């Protein structure tokens, strides 16, 4: 700021910041930085200058800038207020809420080429879209008399319990001078309770009749599968993993073998129903074993369109396989060779005696 050629004051202003100074007797001048625009070729700033309490005689025109005031066109700052509203803020899993998005232009200019972006919402699924502006809105006028613009109405279904903030709707737009602006909506909070969501829960018990067997002896395992949930379990499959040192011999009704591996398959296991299966294994090698199994099934919780898949693993208590009754014969072939030799000798002896006494 200069008085004549003398610099009185210097500095920088932020947007909406102003500076005042006096001139002559009681005259005041206020300069306020309205906005700064960087999108064009050159950076531009809009400055609001207000003169007050001055004597007209104190003013005189020194020079008129060419194409200045006479060529200026008004370009304000549009401001869109986007609101996102829900009909219910506390629901249960599976319940549906209706979301309504509105926009209203404030500020001192109309909003042009308005585009709304509503991101996808986690923990909810879009159930239905009632209304939606399909393309960009070319102009939203400002003013108290201009009603709110309806952007969209849609319904969301809660899929998971918890407290969630809906994501904000973003609006991008320009003013009459083509300057770009952006606004975001509020983010309503929704509390989703667990509610009465259905589920299947297949409890599996695997038992063996013996905890200790000798090699080559047999062991019977019993499998009891019970659905303790409140939804039917479908495609229930239990793959029995027979350990290396054991061999699958046979199984009762309902147990099939696929590729030599035993498997139980139940099309549907209703809630509170159970099924029992038994199968026989043969201990092949000495060691400590546990029979494990891999369970898989799926169910519909009454909320989701897709079935929910469940997997689990189970195992029996450990089984000790000890040496067989005659394993010592295999360890030491002499135990076989010597008796065989003795038997052969006895056989030869008997034959010779028979020949000796046969007449």
């Amino acid at each position, binding site marked *: 700021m200069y008085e004549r050629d003398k610099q009185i004051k210097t500095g920088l202003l932020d947007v909406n910041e102003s500076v005042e100074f006096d001139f002559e007797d009681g005259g005041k001048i206020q300069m306020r930085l309205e906005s700064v625009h960087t999108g064009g070729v050159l950076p531009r700033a809009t400055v609001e200058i207000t003169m007050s309490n001055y004597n007209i005689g104190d003013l005189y025109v020194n020079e008129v800038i060419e194409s200045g005031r006479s060529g200026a066109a008004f370009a304000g700052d549009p401001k869109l207020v986007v609101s996102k509203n829900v009909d219910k803020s506390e629901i249960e899993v599976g319940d549906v809420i209706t979301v309504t998005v509105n926009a209203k232009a404030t500020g001192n200019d109309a909003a042009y080429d308005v585009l709304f972006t509503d991101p996808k919402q986690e923990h909810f699924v879009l159930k239905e879209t009632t209304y939606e502006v399909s393309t960009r809105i070319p102009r939203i006028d400002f003013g108290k008399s201009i009603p709110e613009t309806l952007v969209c109405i849609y319904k969301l279904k809660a899929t998971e319990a918890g407290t969630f903030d809906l994501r904000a709707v973003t609006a991008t737009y320009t003013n009459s001078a083509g300057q770009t602006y952006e606004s975001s909506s509020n983010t309503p909070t929704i509390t989703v309770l667990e509610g009465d969501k259905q589920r299947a829960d297949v409890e599996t018990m695997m038992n063996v009749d013996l905890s200790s067997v000798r090699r080559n002896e047999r062991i019977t395992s019993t499998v009891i599968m019970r659905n303790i949930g409140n939804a039917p379990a479908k495609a229930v499959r239990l793959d029995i993993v027979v350990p290396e040192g054991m061999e699958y011999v046979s199984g009762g009704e309902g147990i099939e073998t696929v590729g030599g591996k035993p498997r139980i398959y139940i099309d549907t296991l209703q809630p509170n129903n159970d099924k029992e299966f038994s199968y026989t294994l043969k201990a092949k090698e000495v060691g400590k074993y546990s029979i494990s199994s891999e369970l898989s099934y799926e169910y519909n919780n009454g909320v989701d369109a897709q079935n929910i898949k469940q997997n689990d693993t189970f195992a029996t208590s450990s089984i000790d396989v000890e040496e067989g009754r005659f394993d010592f014969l295999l360890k030491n072939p002499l135990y076989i060779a010597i008796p065989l030799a003795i038997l052969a000798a006895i056989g030869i*002896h*008997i034959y010779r*005696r*028979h*020949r*000796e*006494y*046969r*007449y």
Partner: protein
Amino acid sequence: MLNILVIGNGQCGNRILDSINRHAMGGGKNCNKLAKFYAKQKFKSHVETLAFNTAVNDLKEMKFTKAKDRVHIPHLHGVGANRNVGKQVFEENKEMIMRQVEERGNFDIAFVLTSASGGTGSSFTPLLVREMKNRYDYPVYCVVVLPFREEGTLYLQNTAFSIRDIRQSGADGIILADNQYLKNIGGNIEEAYNGINDMVAERLLFLLDALDSEMMMVTDLGDFKTVMSGGAGLATIGFFRADKEMPIKTTIQNSLSPSGLLFSTNVYEEASRAMIVIKGDRKYLSIDEISTEVEKLSGAVGHVFKGIVVRDGEYPQVLSLLTLESAHELEKLYNVAVQAIHYEKAKKQRVEEGIEMKKTFSQIEGMEPEY
């Protein structure tokens, strides 16, 4: 160790021989039929056994005698109780028979077991003994089994001639066993025969055992020969085996009683010499009792050889060998045999004269069949 040859001639001799072999395997007469597969004869001496028979089926019935010791003399199936046929068969096969004896080696003593009444045994034995005596210098004793008196005239006359022939063959002695006397054993005929065979076998085995045992008081082969050379060349054997604790005095008396003897004789009247072999645990063998009984016997018969074999834990057993000066029972047998010979002779004469059949055929003399 003595070398002993035991020959069984004919069915009876074969069976007694088989019984000896069975007893020698252990277990006595209750020896398991399968014993031959796991046991072998346990003779004190070196004993060779040999069975001759013209009936192959009789040889097949033997179960405890080795096949090589069973010699079939080929003549169809036996000689049919005809001693003349038997003698002829022996002569025809003499060299083969004697070669079998020769192959068994040299012996200190031989026993020939036979029935006096049958075909093969009664005819073979005298000829066999004669050949053995001609060829070898060891003594040969015959154990001769007398028939049931009711077995028939042929058997009776066979017995009479067979015993005579054996005596004349040069046998060093004949030990008699009488089926008639022993048939009070009871049971059916098979059990009776088997029982008699077992009795003879048990006594002979005991005798063989005693001849080659170390004794507290000794009887040996020499004593045996001396005893057998006494009397009329006939002898018999008495035996008793206690199955509970029993004084030795009682055991000796039982061996000399009718139930212990193989042939009916009054020991104290008919015996000429005797040998008594006593076996058992030392605690049963009272010298005083033994001496008393032996003295009592020697007072009646003259000399008595006695031998004592100590066997720990065994009840007392006594075998008595008696040679006979006379044999009243044998005289009775010969009386019956003479009657049988007369009966057979008369019958044969009638047949030869054709008296009975002439009467039959004379009824149609001069007649022709009418059709």
